[in-house]
């Protein structure tokens, strides 16, 4: 199961790094939650972060918007994940992993765009493992330029 969870995390990162964002909502349960929040707000227990999706639908709207409505310079991500720490829970698994995301601009400029932790609740959804919730807790309070592709 450890293997299967690690594969899920790697597959998720791969989908985003490859720009296959249409695959993104599918990693979540139908009513799955996704949030990007700063460490500062997270520790202060504040509800509002930087991005929030309360359902797969909201994720689909995000993808739709960034494909057709939002304007930004082309760029890609590269994820590096540390070994996850996995705990069994009532509903499935509580998983935590350190993350670093590099952002590569079209001119090749590469920056450390984000570091932090994934705090995941993973459930067995039929045959597959899916995120019941995935919270990205960013170490930094500040975002370079903008955040449009999910982390």
């Amino acid at each position: 199961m450890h293997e299967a969870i690690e594969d899920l995390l790697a597959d998720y990162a791969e989908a985003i790094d490859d720009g296959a964002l249409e695959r993104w909502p599918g990693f979540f349960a139908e009513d799955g939650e996704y949030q990007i929040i700063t460490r500062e707000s997270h520790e202060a227990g504040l509800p509002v972060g930087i991005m929030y999706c309360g359902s797969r639908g909201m994720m689909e709207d995000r993808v739709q918007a960034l494909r057709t409505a939002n304007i930004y310079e082309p760029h890609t991500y590269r994820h590096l994940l540390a070994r996850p720490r996995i705990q069994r829970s009532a509903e499935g698994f509580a998983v935590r992993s350190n993350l670093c995301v590099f952002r590569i601009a079209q001119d090749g400029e590469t920056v450390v765009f984000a570091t932090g932790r994934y705090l995941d609740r993973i459930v067995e959804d039929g045959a597959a493992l899916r995120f019941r919730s995935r919270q990205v807790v960013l170490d930094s309070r500040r975002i370079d330029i903008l955040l449009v592709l999910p982390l």
Partner: protein
Amino acid sequence: MDIPVTHAPGIDLVWPREGVTRVPFQVFSDPAIYAEEQKRFFRGPIWNFLCLEIEIPKPGDWRLATVGETPVVVTRDEHGAVHALVNRCAHKGALVCLQERGNAKALTCVYHSWSYDLAGRLQSVAFRHGVRGKGGMPEDFSPEQHRLEPLRVEVFCGLVFGTFSDATVPVEAYLGETMARMIRRNLGRPLRMLGMHSQIIHNNWKLYAENVRDSYHATLLHTFYTTFKVNRLDMDGGMLLSEDGRHSISYAKRDTLRQSDEYQKVHAAQYKSALAAPELLDTWTEFEDGITHCIQTVFPTLVVQLTLNSLAVRFFTPRGINKTELFWIYLGAQDDDEEQTRKRLMQSNLTGAAGLVSLEDGCINEFVQRGTRGSEDRNAFLEMGGRDVESSDGSRATETGIRGFWKGYRELMGF
């Protein structure tokens, strides 16, 4: 004839004769102008936004801020009074407060333990009398002559402002009646912070100051606005300016939409308008005046936003000639119920660094910074909505707000 620069030595700039309808690109990239702004503009007769009062609720609370590039600490003393002090020790200039937020009975510099009260008055100097009678300060040393440099402070609707100048009029007069009223409408109630983050944008701070006063771009660049009819120029709305033109309010009334085919021509409306998760835009009527979208700017670097039910304060501060930090503080009313808080959370997706209708502003000003490289001798052209600086009630297809900013900037800089 051209207007030569009169008061800025070392700056080689001639403002075009067309006045506020032109902006020399040089002002966004000339280091001499940037240095001069630190003295002449940010220490001039303006009110700089420092922080929210709710960030320093208790006696002894402090919070760091910057005015231009000058580090400042805002404190609340034991009597509840708010002070703003340059965060620069009177001894050798070290930062006195190191953490972004804190609480203390006194402000003690870590370098040599000089200690100040919460109003910035020097209280003690370590080893002032030396050790066992040796060393220490000269007899004539007088603590009264050394203190943390203070700013004048005023609090309006929970907004803490500071100024270096004695000439600055009181905040309410500075804002003018119209601006003050709208701030009261949006912030004149007990508030709580729902979250905050910031953005580093790679452009001169004045490009963002223009951007937030630019009611012309909003519905063209931010196509999500248009498509989902959150904010469009074919709703009733307008661009109100303060008497001096420095501050502005861009507002719209969502229920008054009568679609104009102007939009058919622009990219802005090409995107299918059905949301898979419409709850994103679930709102409730927070005010009875029908205004559902309102971006208010306070000269020079503050913005108060109420988009649908998303209430936020934005402010920005220069981090270098082509680098600016933009802060987002999301607010709710203290008496919001759970569902209202949930709606504000949902709508927080609209703005901020990842905002569906604001993320473009993270790069668009950089596009201007980069687009004008090598063209420092050319000018921006600002004649949309005429050439004057005055309110434009009824239409936001205007750059009057931007012209108003430059009017104020030139007055302060002597350009």
